[in-house]
């Protein structure tokens, strides 16, 4: 009864289904393809437990800060202060431990609390004074950089860093798994449960999905947004602490570049599994793609600049393909 194949341009249902799958799983497929390719090209160096542990260990700090950023973007805001904040936190913790001789746990607690306060400030500026979050967090971040230089007088704190502090990041725990990885798993796991499996997480998703509707459904939108910034700030603090421990020094600007890596991971993540939405699991996949990409290039001795080119290109291609695939599959 019906005429079929009306147009050559028309996509068959099969093609559409395939495109839909590609839009959702493209990044994961890409990640696996990358791992397989590197494994074939460099069977001795790449696919080893040691190398994988190493990649994860390296990537953990970026994953933690990206996990925090995910919360800020899930509630519909951007947090550009995280890299600068992490740098300041690194200096502070080193200063507390080296100069003030504070017990390490106390120092860690103070710095993380400070991270929460920075998040609170960001959140207040955005929700109460109603400054656009890009501007607000860029402003706060710049101020934090200034504070970092003021505190350290521009000189890295290197001398007298106690071994116990270095062990925060360099140590291993359960089954010899590096501490960084354990902390990362705890943080991302906790954030995933918070967002996906708690009533509070429902409110968080609602605010990001449609803030007007969330407000009229009785959600306290400002409070949820502030919470997003606070979590982002606390994760930045954690990354700052672990980085200082890994480097064995507190250096102004040491963590600044984590901002870009975190954004790349978060946006790559939004092209994963869900149609353009930010979520914690996606961020994890995004961070893994970047980490394995860098590692592979390192093993092949590719120059540093190519790593940046790679990071930028992967981001654009992955997000672009996902949205293209999605819109074709929808028609």
């Amino acid at each position, binding site marked *: 009864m019906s005429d079929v194949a009306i147009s050559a341009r028309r996509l068959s249902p099969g093609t559409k289904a395939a495109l839909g799958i590609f839009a959702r799983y493209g990044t994961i497929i890409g990640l696996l393809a990358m791992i397989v390719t590197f494994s074939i090209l460099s069977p001795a160096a790449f696919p080893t437990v040691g190398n994988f542990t190493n990649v994860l260990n390296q990537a953990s700090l970026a994953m933690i800060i990206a996990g925090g950023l995910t919360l800020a973007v899930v509630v519909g805001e951007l947090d550009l202060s995280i890299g600068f904040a992490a740098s300041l936190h690194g200096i502070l913790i080193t200063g507390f431990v080296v100069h003030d001789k504070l017990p390490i746990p106390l120092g860690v607690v103070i710095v993380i609390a400070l991270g929460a306060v920075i998040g609170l400030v960001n959140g207040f500026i955005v929700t109460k004074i109603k400054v656009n979050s890009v501007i607000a967090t860029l402003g706060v971040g710049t101020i934090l950089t200034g504070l970092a230089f003021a505190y350290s007088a521009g000189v890295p704190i290197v001398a007298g860093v106690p071994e116990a502090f270095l062990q925060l990041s360099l140590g291993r725990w359960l089954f010899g798994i590096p501490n960084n990885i354990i902390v990362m798993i705890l943080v991302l796991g906790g954030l995933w449960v918070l967002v996906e499996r708690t009533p509070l997480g429902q409110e968080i998703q609602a605010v990001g*999905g*449609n803030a007007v*509707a969330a407000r009229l459904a009785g959600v306290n939108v400002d409070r949820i947004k502030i919470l997003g910034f606070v979590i982002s700030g606390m994760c930045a603090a954690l990354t700052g602490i672990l980085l200082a421990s890994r480097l064995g020094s507190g250096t102004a600007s040491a963590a600044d570049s984590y901002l870009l890596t975190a954004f790349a991971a978060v946006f790559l993540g939004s092209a994963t599994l869900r149609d353009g939405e930010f979520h914690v699991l996606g961020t994890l996949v995004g961070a893994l793609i970047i980490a394995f990409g860098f590692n592979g290039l390192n093993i092949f001795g590719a120059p540093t600049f190519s790593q940046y080119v790679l990071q930028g290109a992967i981001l654009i291609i992955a997000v672009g393909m996902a949205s293209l695939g999605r819109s074709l599959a929808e028609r």
Partner: protein
Amino acid sequence: MAAAFTRGAPQPGGAEMTVPLLVARDIAKAFGGTQALKGVSLDIAPGEIHGLVGANGAGKSTFIRILAGLNHPDAGRIELDGRRQEIGTPQRATELGMSFIHQELAFVPGMTVLQNIMLGVPKKTRFGLTDWRAIARDVAPIAGRVGISAPLNASVKGLSTAEIWLINICRALVRKARLIVMDEPTASLAAGEAERLFAIVRDLSASGVSVLYISHRLDEILNLCTRVSVFRDGRSVAELAGDALHRPALVEAIVGGAIRDTQRTATARARGGVVLEAKNLTRVPKVRGVSLELHAGEVLGIGGLVGAGRTELARLLFGADRPDSGEMALMGRPYTPSSPAAAVQVGLGLVPEERRAEALFLSKSIAFNLSIANLDRVAFGRYLPLMNRRARTSMAGEMIRALSIKARNASTPVGRLSGGNQQKVAIGRWLQRIPKVLILDEPTRGVDIGARTEIHRLIRQQAEAGMAVLVISSEPDELPELCDRVLVMAEGRIVRELTGLAMSRKAIVEASYVEP
């Protein structure tokens, strides 16, 4: 299926002799696993006002999205002027002389009226620049003809839905469309505005423009259309014209059987004490000194024209805006909600007017959308703040059944539902919570006749159980049908109170135009 099938019956105006403007045959379309259209056919003669009706989710909007080139059919054939056409893109649809006014109105808030009218229309240029002055000269008479009262260079921000609708009509006329498709045009218009719309539609038809008119309001359909196609579950099930075109036949074709019209029991039920009280509530310019008392167990209607300040009043009562002056009391205690969250805490609920912008999370599931105002009920417990997903799914399942929401399951994203089914989700959220006071702003907009009866029944049921319900509606028939008492608002004031037999369509419309 006992509906009269009168395809091929003589058409008024001798249209059977002319080549139909548009012919669609056996159009099918699936979205993922949902077969939205299984095979629909329809043809439209030049200058005809053709009606299209069907229950929520029957496939009406999908069909016109295909005509508009927004979706591609999986199978079927479309002809214009007897020639087979591939529509493919919205641009092509425009070239073919079709213009669309979709269910969810399209406009760009940051632009002027004129810019919105000219959206996507090739524009006159002068020295390579868009010549807005000349364009304005050309557009002004058309804007006058459809009755756009706002100046062409005004921003569309703050214009009413009706005015935005007129802008869309105007755009169609500027493009010299031969077929204008209107998806539920009167859903957000008040009585007076609807009359003006009908006049415009008849005028278009007289000048040879065809109109495909989709609506759930059967009176309008009967009033305007010469032929009506009925869709049910993605198929064309009837085409009614001439003597066969009457209300019972339409209803039967739409629902596929007779509908049980719930008769209102005329006996006034005993209403409870005052739950919510407002005194001299004012927020200029829209609300000016409104006083009202809402009792437990009553359904209080607020009628009036769009723009009379009813939505703004609802927002004040719900804490979404702060009043300039005036007082409110809830259960006899002073009530000064600082936010909707605070209002919800003390037992209020609001179904807002614009479901997509103000009520729904389109990419999220039905279960998510229903549970967002009921989170305390989906937690495992106070000391275990984890979400009980099974409880959430089963609660959603109950609502889906109670409101007969047409969806595959509770995890279907709300954005994939048809307009009417989205509205049911927006209402279901609050029916689940059972607040003390429920405010519904245009609760049955875009809802089909079966579901409308069902929503009315649920509202009455809640009121009987003691809830205080405030219903805002621009549809003059709805309030007398549903309410115990009606207040009519005009220009920010309450101008009339109607009770018992005095509540009638006529009385409400008359009072709406009263100079306060």
